[in-house]
């Protein structure tokens, strides 16, 4: 972003990468996929790069309001400094915080999750779907991220993208409003679960295997980790791929 600013350019879109997308090796692949899609659609976008900081979502959910607001006010200052208007992110937690929680602290932006953006790009014909791609007819199920679904009512955008792949979309028994959490939300990602009979991702793994899908589509880097771990433990061949990765693979971007 700083480079663009120096060149006197204002990008149409800011890509908020998020911490998982920046540092987690698996999630970095999602980041690169979304970047490829944006490049392919010739959308001029910027990232904050080293100036980006955690939105504060896990801190707030863990009860540390102080730390959350420190991060939020700092990020709002950075975003406003660059005059950012529109933000896309591949992380539903960043999405929720930027969209719903920053306005109260003075940060007002148009925030869009990458599943929505991809859906729009397909509808506008800017992503040209390849006929008979690698996912045609494949059984794919979609795992609803809590922070996209119940938290923000986004159930259809990711499914619309899967339909555009010409895949055979199957639903797990718990989906949409009744979708089962992967276990990572509410700052659980950063600690062991409390004592219980199972871990939450083990419970969700049963649903994934039962669906008989070959691919589980996810739309959240935390879900990605949880679901992959759950499947790995069961030595399952089912793959977990992000919506952005599916688009990149299908169209060989």
């Amino acid at each position: 972003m700083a480079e663009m600013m120096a060149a006197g350019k204002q990008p149409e879109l800011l890509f908020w990468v998020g911490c998982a997308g920046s540092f987690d090796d698996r999630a970095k692949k999602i980041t690169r996929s979304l970047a490829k899609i944006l490049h392919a659609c010739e959308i001029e976008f910027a990232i904050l790069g080293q100036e980006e900081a955690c939105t504060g979502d896990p801190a707030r959910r863990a009860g540390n309001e102080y730390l959350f607001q420190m991060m939020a006010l700092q990020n709002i200052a950075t975003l406003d400094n660059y005059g950012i208007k529109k933000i896309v992110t591949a992380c539903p937690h960043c999405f929720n915080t930027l969209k719903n929680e920053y306005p109260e602290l003075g940060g007002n932006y148009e925030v869009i999750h990458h599943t929505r953006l991809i859906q729009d790009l397909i509808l506008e014909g800017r992503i040209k779907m390849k006929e008979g791609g690698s996912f045609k007819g494949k059984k794919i199920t979609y795992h609803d991220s809590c922070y996209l679904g119940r938290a923000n009512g986004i159930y259809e955008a990711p499914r619309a993208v899967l339909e555009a792949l010409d895949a055979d979309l199957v639903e797990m028994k718990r989906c949409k409003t009744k979708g089962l959490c992967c276990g990572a939300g509410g700052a659980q990602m950063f600690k062991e679960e409390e004592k219980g009979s199972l871990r939450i991702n083990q419970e969700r793994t049963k649903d994934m295997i039962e669906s008989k899908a070959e691919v589980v589509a996810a739309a959240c880097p935390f879900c990605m980790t949880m679901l992959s771990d759950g499947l790995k433990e069961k030595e399952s061949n089912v793959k977990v791929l992000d919506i952005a990765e599916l688009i990149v693979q299908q169209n060989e971007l």
Partner: protein
Amino acid sequence: MQYIQAIIFIAVTLVTFYFFFKKGKEIYNNIQLGRSADIQNKGGLKSMILLALGQKKMFQNMIPAVLHLCIYVAFVITQIELIEIFLDGFTGSHRMFFHAVQGSMAGEGMYNFVISFIEVLSVLALIATVIFLVRRNLLRVPRFVMPEMNGWPKMDGNIILYWEIFLVFCIFLMNGADAALYPGKYGFLISDNIIAPMLSGFSEGTLHFMERFGWWGHILGVLAFLNYIPYSKHLHIMLAFPNAYYLEETPAGKVENMPNITNEIKAMFDPNFTPAPVSEEAANEKFGAKDATDLTWKNLLDAYSCTECGRCTDACPANQTGKLLSPRKIMMDTRDRIEEIGEGIKKEGKEFKDEKALLGDYISEEEVKACTSCNACVQECPVSINPLNIILQLRRYMILEEAKSPEEWNVMFNNIENNMAPWQFSPMDRDKWKEELEEAE
């Protein structure tokens, strides 16, 4: 005889209504013990009509929804007959509405239609009630047999159902005996055609007694029930309405802001910042909630609106995987605790204090920590209760006031503060993925 009955009736009614309103006022006062709630976008009449009156969210589960609807509609429509019973009781008359229209074909037809309609609904309600009893006690539907349901909550659920059976029994005894006493006078679908023939062998005196027993049994049952409701989970039949009205309509993912902290941080960033004046209540507020009185009045209204159905707990990922957390228990504990504080204040005055608190004595830290904030409980609740909101307030108290966070969370907090990310990576590496992208290209 008529006068004596009317006098007894009036006396009983006045006494029971007095006690009902007295308890109602206590509940109102208890709810007022909560701090003020900043409801920015309330659901209003629309959500009251959809959720409470229309039971929209009940239909997320079809079978219980239909059964519940039978009881609900029967309850609402029976109020018409109840009005007549009350008027008869006050004036010592008998079936006042019928005698007002007697002789007119249309009037009698209408009266018979209404009573017959109520009779059909009563039978449906009776069937639903029996199925509910079976589900609770024989089929042992999982959400009804969880630990927090042991003892009083289980009994409460059954008492209500048996009570409903008694009320329906009385209605049919009253109508049936009346129909048997005066064949051809009325035209009640079930009482005239099914129950009256069954009672035909009884003497006129016995039938009179049955009719009176049914009448008094029903009205005394209703009045007693009215006084039972405020002590019971059944309070939802009233409080579901205001609770849906005050529902917060922002996206479920949004967590309530703490303006006090915003002021502190703004002052830290900018020494010239002067915070907007805050109310005394807000200035004295502790961070987060330790006790029920630290919660908002809406949280407390939520607790009183809960009918302990357990849809929230059934959907809770933590509960499904054997963790202690149960969103229903959060609501039940909150209600029990605010009742306890209310009782204390009644006895010892406003200064009442005991050694207990909601967090610690009712709800354990382990429960509070287990939540994934997935909103499944909020989504499921048919009367728009939000257990997550309470859980997050308790967490705030644990972290901000008591610094009791799990060690791993402390690590996460430190990382965010020092590295701008919840993991220990250098902020300088944040855009490394870009290089890898360029390499690949």
